[in-house]
């Protein structure tokens, strides 16, 4: 199918994007990589009046290593971040999780911030951000605000972002000493959306486990290690309100959280 008609602006600067968002609000849509939005437009599930293209806004195409985080601007493609030679040292979880995002061909165009703004409950980048306790920087013409990932994601394709705001940057906390990072995912085929995806930051006595694809958003929980782990995983599995869909039953999803979670954490 073909998109309904819209006006198109190839934005030159961040400022211009913010001004257009202020003027058009709900009627405008940002197009970043288009790897989710174009399908939505082609199927006419959305019919914006104005499309604001941020692909040429060079000031948003930065990856910056800061004191406590790796900051990624809105025009950075997934392939670009994944190809960063130092990524596995800086944010090991990203190096593990990102190869699971779609395919080589979609990562070549899809952006990091676009995936976060889109907020698919089974997407790898939102899951990584929530598990690591990362932040999202939102900006409108009125100013900037920084929000924790856990508060940003509010449901299926639903976030705390207001219609006049741009996701300008996401911040991934840097690797911490003594923590082991792991990622695992079950999908119908590699590159398909996850039935269940798990991201773990494993310390000596405690684990942060992020679960994607089960609840209506990525969820992070703290779990004990050792003998108490299986019960805690079971509780987590039930707390996520898993749903049946065409890909898998709710019971299967809960079982994956328990079983895969245990293997991921205890490394067996």
């Amino acid at each position, binding site marked *: *199918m*073909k*998109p*309904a*008609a*819209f*006006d*198109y*602006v*190839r934005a030159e600067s961040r400022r211009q994007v913010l001004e257009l968002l202020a003027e058009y609000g709900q009627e405008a849509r940002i*197009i970043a990589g*288009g*790897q989710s939005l*174009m*399908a939505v*437009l*082609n*199927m006419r599930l959305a019919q914006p009046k104005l*499309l604001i*293209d941020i*692909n040429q806004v060079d000031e948003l195409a930065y990856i910056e290593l800061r004191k406590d985080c790796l900051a990624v601007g809105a025009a950075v493609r997934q*392939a670009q971040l994944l190809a960063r030679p130092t990524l596995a040292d800086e944010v090991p979880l990203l190096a593990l999780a990102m*190869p699971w995002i*779609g*395919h*080589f*061909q*979609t990562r*070549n*165009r899809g952006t990091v911030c676009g995936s976060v703004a889109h907020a698919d409950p089974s997407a790898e980048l939102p899951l990584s951000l929530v598990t690591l306790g990362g932040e999202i920087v939102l900006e409108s013409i009125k100013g900037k605000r920084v929000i924790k990932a856990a508060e940003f994601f509010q449901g299926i394709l639903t976030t705390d972002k207001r219609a006049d705001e741009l996701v300008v940057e996401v911040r991934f906390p840097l690797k911490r000493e003594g923590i082991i990072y792991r990622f695992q995912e079950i999908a119908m*085929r*590699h*590159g398909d959306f996850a039935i269940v995806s798990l991201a773990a930051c494993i310390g000596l006595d405690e684990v942060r486990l992020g679960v994607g694809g089960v609840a209506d958003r990525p969820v992070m929980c703290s779990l004990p290690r050792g003998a108490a782990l299986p019960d805690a995983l079971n509780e987590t599995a039930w707390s996520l309100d898993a749903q049946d869909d065409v890909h898998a039953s709710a019971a299967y999803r809960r079982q994956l959280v328990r079983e895969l979670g245990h293997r991921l954490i205890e490394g067996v």
Partner: protein
Amino acid sequence: MRVTAEQRFAVRLELNGRTREGLAEPRTQLCDFLRHDLGATGVHVGCEHGVCGACTVLVDGVAMRSCLMLAVQAHERRIETVESLADDDTLSDLQQAFRRNHALQCGFCTAGILMSCVDFLERQPDPSEAEVRDMLSGHLCRCTGYTGIVQAVLEVAAQRQTNEEV
């Protein structure tokens, strides 16, 4: 650059080494523009939502879905389609390997797969079978079962490595 819904924008791009121009509405997908306006009918359109990979082309040398791009976004970019591969009547090494290994039957998926392979082999001149299969996960082929395609890609990689050594 601003184009209203009713306007036609003169998209100028480099297609397979030649400068080409055509008029496009903002909503025109790149795949349709390449096929209908510039005559590059080697670009195949299957699903129009990014899943099948048939429409894959190179944009500035990088493999992307042309159904998930707008024609206006390709303004002033370099586009390569399957038409760029053969040198007159001589098929490229990749195309020849596809033919030898029965890597195509109906050929609907092939144009997109070839373009992915061009970019992939640039970056991974010596890939493992697992890496080739990972790259191919971005394409659907309903005929071949992929085995011949994997063989063809590995064969070309090996061939190019040997050629480099001599």
